[in-house]
């Protein structure tokens, strides 16, 4: 990447631009992200203790439920309102993943249900799936070779 020549100017901007309230952002991300995880824990305890799901099924059920809640709150325009304050606190949990699919799906509906809504719903989520699934294949290759060569 080309080095930016305007370092003096950028330093000047850094000094004079209003300080972004980083501490406040980080605290809000911590609080709201933490709270979303507590909600996930509550839902998980409900599935495990009341519905009697085993741990693996419980985790999948929690993901599915949280994804539903993220999508619904996006539809109701509540998730973006929380996200305005919470930043990464609403982006990083799996509810944010649901939001990142639902939000463009709603926005591009006017361009049609196939090439608009359905094609563009993955604009943020697709990279997550591409890198996530590719990583899992790499992990699988390494694990397979490890087992074959070392006999783990």
């Amino acid at each position: 990447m080309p080095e930016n020549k305007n370092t003096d100017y950028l330093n000047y901007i850094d000094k004079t631009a209003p300080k972004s309230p980083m501490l406040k952002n980080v605290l809000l991300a911590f609080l709201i992200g933490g709270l979303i995880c507590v909600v996930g824990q509550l839902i998980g305890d409900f599935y495990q203790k009341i519905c009697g799901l085993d741990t693996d099924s419980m985790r999948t059920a929690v993901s599915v439920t949280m994804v539903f809640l993220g999508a619904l709150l996006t539809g109701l325009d509540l998730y973006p309102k929380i996200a305005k304050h919470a930043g990464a606190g609403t982006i990083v949990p799996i509810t944010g993943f649901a939001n990142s699919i639902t939000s463009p799906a709603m926005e591009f509906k006017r361009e049609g249900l196939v090439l608009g809504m359905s094609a563009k719903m993955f604009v943020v989520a697709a990279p997550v799936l591409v890198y996530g699934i590719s990583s899992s294949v790499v992990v699988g290759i390494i694990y397979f070779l490890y087992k074959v060569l070392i006999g783990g």
Partner: protein
Amino acid sequence: MQYLNAFWVGGLICAIAQILIDKTKLTPARILVLYVVIGAALGGIGIYDKIVDYAGAGATVPLIGFGNVLANGVKEAVDSEGLLGVITGGASAAAGGISAAVFFAFLIALIFNPKAK
């Protein structure tokens, strides 16, 4: 106790992402990609399950947990199916989350319209 651990570990994972967004030029989409790859790596070497044992949903709800699910799935599939599991394991394990995300997003977007800006 599990709730406290879920709160602070989940909160910390989000706070680190917020610091990365504020301090670097990383966009939220890149943070998500970074987190899922980190999760797959930590899951691959078997560390992340220890954090999941400690923090429960605090470790599974953030997207790093999604990467961990992918890695655990691929390892289990390699154990049971051998080489074919390398390809099938990750997506099979993540199928619940992915299908839910696709279907619920589809459904919600059909029902609701975006708020006029």
